[in-house]
């Protein structure tokens, strides 16, 4: 039996001048799957997202969403940007921001209606953002803004959610909450999630697969197979260690000579400081 893929990238090639940014990429993602997209800076992560979004046509290959070949931008894909830059005084409430996801692309002035409000309230509730939906967006915390951005992307009932480094500006707690939220939405609504991240730690335990990009090549694998010291060290061209502490997996970059000494002495615990940024 053949598995239905909600997103297929077939033999994608993207070249900027002489430089090949994406070199024959083949990826297939199933409905409801949570995929972490990792890779060093300049590996082509943003380019890959732009190809999937239809903002960049590849030199070769095709993108298939739900079995259909897509060339143009597409409602089945929800996009969540990294961050929103707004003044604290910008006259825009959370629900106004989310509403742009419903009809922001249409001409004219938005007319309030019960149906419109109900649709917006529904997604605000889904991301647990109702309690700050009427506050000015510019005054909300990074985690709260991220929830609004996710709600906005949900309004088109997407089959795929693309999140471009949503965790890079968040503290430990907010990052975990956002990942848990996205994981839950994906499972409940059958949405495939592709989340770009530099710090893999908040994703461990939530993502189903890892898609990693390096020098224009992509490979997708089960989490256990990719999150290995040797694999990650090769991917980043830098020493990366995968530690298993108290039943949890941690990814740590670089080698600290003092830590080696502690290791030799034995019995050192990191406590709860589990988020160690890799570089």
């Amino acid at each position, binding site marked *: 039996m053949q598995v239905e893929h909600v997103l297929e990238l077939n033999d994608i090639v993207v070249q900027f001048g002489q430089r090949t940014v994406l070199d024959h990429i083949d990826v297939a993602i199933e409905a409801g799957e949570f995929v972490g997209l990792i890779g060093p800076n300049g590996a082509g992560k943003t380019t890959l997202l732009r190809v999937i*979004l*239809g*903002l960049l046509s590849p030199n070769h290959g095709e993108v298939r969403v739900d079995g259909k070949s897509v060339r*143009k*931008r597409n409602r089945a*894909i929800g*996009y969540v*940007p990294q961050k*929103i830059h*707004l*003044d604290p*005084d*910008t*006259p*825009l*409430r959370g629900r*106004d*921001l989310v509403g*742009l*996801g419903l*009809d*922001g*692309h*249409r*001409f*004219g*002035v*938005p007319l309030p209606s019960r149906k419109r409000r109900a649709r917006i309230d529904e997604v605000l509730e889904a991301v647990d953002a109702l309690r700050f939906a*009427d*506050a*000015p967006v510019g005054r909300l915390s990074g985690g709260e803004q991220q929830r609004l*951005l996710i709600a*906005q*992307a949900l309004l088109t009932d997407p089959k795929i959610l693309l999140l*471009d480094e949503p965790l890079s500006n968040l503290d430990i707690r907010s990052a975990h909450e956002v990942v848990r939220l996205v994981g839950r939405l994906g499972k409940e609504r059958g949405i495939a999630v592709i989340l770009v991240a530099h710090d893999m730690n908040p994703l461990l335990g939530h993502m189903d697969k890892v898609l990693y990009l390096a020098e224009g090549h992509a490979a997708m694998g089960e989490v256990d197979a990719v999150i290995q010291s040797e694999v990650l060290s090769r991917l980043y061209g830098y020493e990366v260690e995968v530690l298993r502490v108290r039943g949890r997996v941690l990814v740590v970059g670089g080698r600290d000579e003092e830590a080696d000494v502690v290791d030799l002495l034995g019995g050192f615990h990191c406590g709860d400081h589990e988020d160690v940024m890799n570089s």
Partner: protein
Amino acid sequence: MGQFLQMVFPLDLITLPFMFHALLSGTVVAILSGLVGFFVILRGSSFVAHVLPKAGFAGAAGAVLLDINPLVGLVVFALGGALSIGMLGKRGRHDVVTALTLVVALGTGALFLTLNEHYATGAYALLFGQLVGVSLSQVLDTVVLGLVCVLILGVLYRPLLFASIMRDSAEARGISSRKLEMAFLIVVGLATAVTVPVVGALLSFSLMIGPAATARYLTRRPGTSLVCSVAIAILTIWAALVLGYDTSWPIGFFVSSISALLYGVVRVGASLQQRRVAGKTDAHVHPLDGVVGQK
């Protein structure tokens, strides 16, 4: 009291045709400035709003030299400036191109003024705004151009708001932020062209920035903010025209000082109110109490 009111608001404010014309075109100009200003601030393009009136000024000076309608020169140069800023700018960043547009405009304007020796008073009016000599046909020009701009802004409202706040997401939804930017710059250019004859090239952008900036402190809803911005702009220009008539000081002076004053008052008020609200809710225990700073 009655005498004072009669001194400030003499009856000929509305019986004098030129004053009636000025109030009418001033109102159109204010509506337009309030609307355009909202987006100018949202997009962080105050510099563009500062430069286009100067381009328009050069155009008007050139038109007088060629003995044609100054409004034609204003429109051509303001639009030319807008188009060059839009086409030469890169992904929303265009401060260098804008600065170059400014110096070219001012240089050309200086040349046109020098070539036309009899135009000193006209130039003064163009720079600082004028009250007298607004003819009915000029009012009609203003109304028509103003309506076109309001119509374009009404059609573009949602995508422009979307792309101004989150460019990438808007593009992912199929909005061409580049085309939108060009359209918006054209509207700013046209709005400039109708504002300059009333308020003056040097200070007309204060009517775009002041009211819209003040409105941000009055509401958190975009639609309401837009309405407040227009209302403040109308009040500002009316007050400026009346005071300008009473004192024969330049309109531009009154527009800029009234809008700055309103901004200051509202901003201070907003921060006082915020402090009061914060004082009420800030009574919780700091999480680092007992962790740091103990002796």
